[in-house]
């Protein structure tokens, strides 16, 4: 079982096709719609989480490509909310790339977004709600 968060962009000519129905019924994929903005006659956009076996997902993505849906991975961005951070360092040993690090003189925790691979470990570890994930729908 594999999961992926994707952004679908539909050209206006296929906005009225029941593509979620096809993904579910024809390819056996579980579709969780996280956000959707679809108006008949206009370009549509949908943020979804797909889960299924590798083979089902790749066949489903082929189908989307065939009918002209633009598929791109959902960009996620981690933010360090400095006003909520206490500098406790609980996140530091869980960060695999040292994007989160601490100055051991000032005991300030710093975050380098360039090093972040969005593994979300810090969200699980931070007890002070000082890490947040933003999903970019653009």
């Amino acid at each position, binding site marked *: 079982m594999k999961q992926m968060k994707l952004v679908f962009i539909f050209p206006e000519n296929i906005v009225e096709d029941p593509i979620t129905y096809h993904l579910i019924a024809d390819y056996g994929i579980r579709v969780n719609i996280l956000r959707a903005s679809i108006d008949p006659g206009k370009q549509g956009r949908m943020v979804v989480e797909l889960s299924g076996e590798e083979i089902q997902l790749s066949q489903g993505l082929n189908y989307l490509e065939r009918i002209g849906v633009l598929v791109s991975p959902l960009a996620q961005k981690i933010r360090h909310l400095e006003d909520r951070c*206490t*500098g*406790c*360092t*609980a*996140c*530091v*040993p*869980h960060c695999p790339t040292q994007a989160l690090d*601490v100055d*051991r003189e*000032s*005991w*300030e925790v710093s975050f380098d977004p360039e090093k972040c691979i969005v593994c979300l470990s810090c969200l*699980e*570890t931070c*007890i*002070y*709600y000082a890490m947040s994930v933003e999903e970019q729908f653009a």
Partner: protein
Amino acid sequence: MARTIEEINAKIRSGKVVVFTAEEIIDVVQKKGIKQAAREVDVVTTGTFSPMCSSGAFFNIKQPREKMKLGGGFATLNGVPAYAGLAAADIYVGATAIPDGDPRNSNGRPGKYRYGGAHVIEDLVAGKKVLLKGGAYGTDCYPLKTREQMIGFDDMNDAFLFNPRNCYQNYNVAVNLSDKPIYTYMGKLKPKLGNAYYCSAGQLSPLFNDPYFRTIGIGTRVFFCGAEGFVAWPGTQHNPNAPRLPNGTPQTPAGTVALIGDMRQMSTEWLRAVSFTGYGVTLSVAVGVPIPIIDEDMLHSVSVTDAQIKAPVVDYSKFYPTGQGEAKLGEVTYKELKSGSIHIKDQDVPTGSFSSYALARKVAHHLKKLIKDGDFLLTQFQAPLPGAVLGKEATE
């Protein structure tokens, strides 16, 4: 050389008091030596900011015109159950309480816990109102049977934090020897010694600086989450008989204090609700205790450094929960813990903390300023904590 609390308070009133934090005093003692520094320094301030689960709040809620007896009935605040087995209008909300079946606290594995007693406490301290729901059986003198009302401090006669156990003198370093990740009150522990968590301010922590409880006792005035607070009693699980290093500091969790303070004076700068994934909710509190330098021995105690205090390393996959398996994996100093890595079983293990040293330092500096500004006077305790070693024998 000896100094009384009265002499120190006279110097605080005249603005001449000499105060350092428990971190600053280390350098002072190194430069001047114990004898000279003890002559010059009156007070050393300590501080800690950490999750402390044994915390909670008493509220007395103003009666509506038709009165109600919550005692023996039930009460919830924002859905969080409060203890109502007291008089008509007194309730207690524990920091770790969570509502049953609440979507804010999804109980899948590892489970998120987003709202509990600690959040009710933080919301009220932040000046917000919370929803009181009460139910009672009704009596001749208290006829009202149900009540639903948004309440804040204005709707209460009293609101005070009463924490049965705070400021643990030392704490375990938690690791995981098993082959799967575990979620504990000491955080997420990666398998096979993947990481280690500690939880103490070390050299700044109040009871590490007064290891034999010579100046901290019942009635001691403390800085408590932004308010004036007091040591109300020995904390639960207070154990003065832990093994100790020659400098007096315990090698395992030892002394504790019960603290009390007015919530209306507190601020969310010094009190925060926290959520541990896979474990639950709890409350982080700030405590600062001033230590009067009554003699040279006391100065010696407060000049203790992270390199001179040690914590036990404990396996939270087996030994802690079941009492079986390897009892002690070793001892490490706080200096090693704060370096970011410790050495256990021939492995380098990265470390992290839940106690914030940055905020512990801020508490100690804040308390130092309060004392220097004449806004905080020291107290002589009314009774010693159990196991207190008073007088000279402390260092013999």
